[in-house]
């Protein structure tokens, strides 16, 4: 793997960055809410939110399983103070370029930290049962449980 020292996903998610009953008018509204959660967690400067919008305009961050992963551009990395994730659930769903998104996982990472984070997150979402559980999660404990490192995935 590219980064053996990667922290667990769960270590990067502040409990207040897990928000499970949100509503958004469209995907950009959702991205700004995800960005606001990262900002409140002290992980980014406000300019990172604009970098997240720029990124989304360049290419959709929808990854499948009703999940998108908004994050900033390469240039936006300078606005990241510390690596962090925010998990926002939109129970009513948001139209995301023709796909329906229920969970946005916002990512702020410096350097190449995002690669290991995305790898861990994608591995969780490739398990349909875990992806379904994440889309239906109603407590932060459930989110932590789903995203915690899987001992069987350790190499």
């Amino acid at each position, binding site marked *: 793997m*590219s980064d053996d020292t990667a922290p667990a996903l769960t270590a990067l998610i502040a409990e207040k960055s897990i928000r499970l009953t949100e509503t958004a008018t469209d995907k950009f509204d959702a991205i700004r809410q995800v960005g606001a959660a990262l900002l409140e967690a002290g992980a980014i400067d406000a300019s990172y939110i604009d970098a997240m919008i720029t*990124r989304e305009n360049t*290419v959709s961050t929808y990854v499948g399983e009703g999940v998108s992963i908004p994050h900033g*551009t*390469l240039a936006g990395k300078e606005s990241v103070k510390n690596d962090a994730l925010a998990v926002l659930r939109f129970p009513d769903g948001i139209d995301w370029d023709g796909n329906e998104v229920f969970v946005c996982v916002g990512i702020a990472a410096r350097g190449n930290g995002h*690669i290991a984070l*995305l*790898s861990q997150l*994608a*591995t969780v979402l490739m398990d349909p049962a875990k992806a379904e559980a994440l889309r239906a999660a109603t407590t932060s404990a459930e989110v932590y449980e789903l995203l915690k490192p899987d001992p069987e995935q350790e190499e």
Partner: protein
Amino acid sequence: MPERTVTVASSVGLHARPASLFSQAAAKAGVPVTLTNAAGKSVNAASILGVLSLGIGHGEEVVLKAEGSDAETALDSLAELLATDLDKD
């Protein structure tokens, strides 16, 4: 089975934007394509989650494999994509 070994050129590795462009291209290839990382883990190249799960960084060597009548053409174009920096905005 035809295969290509490619060094990933995207400066930030195969993450969201490069991974998205790559898996979209793989989905349109017309033949099933597998992507294998340096650690030997293989996934369906058309699955963005699969591609992301490999955690492929810049400069990492990966192997593309495909079978079928269009395999050679598909592998050539996908290998070219990986050898391009897809993260230039």
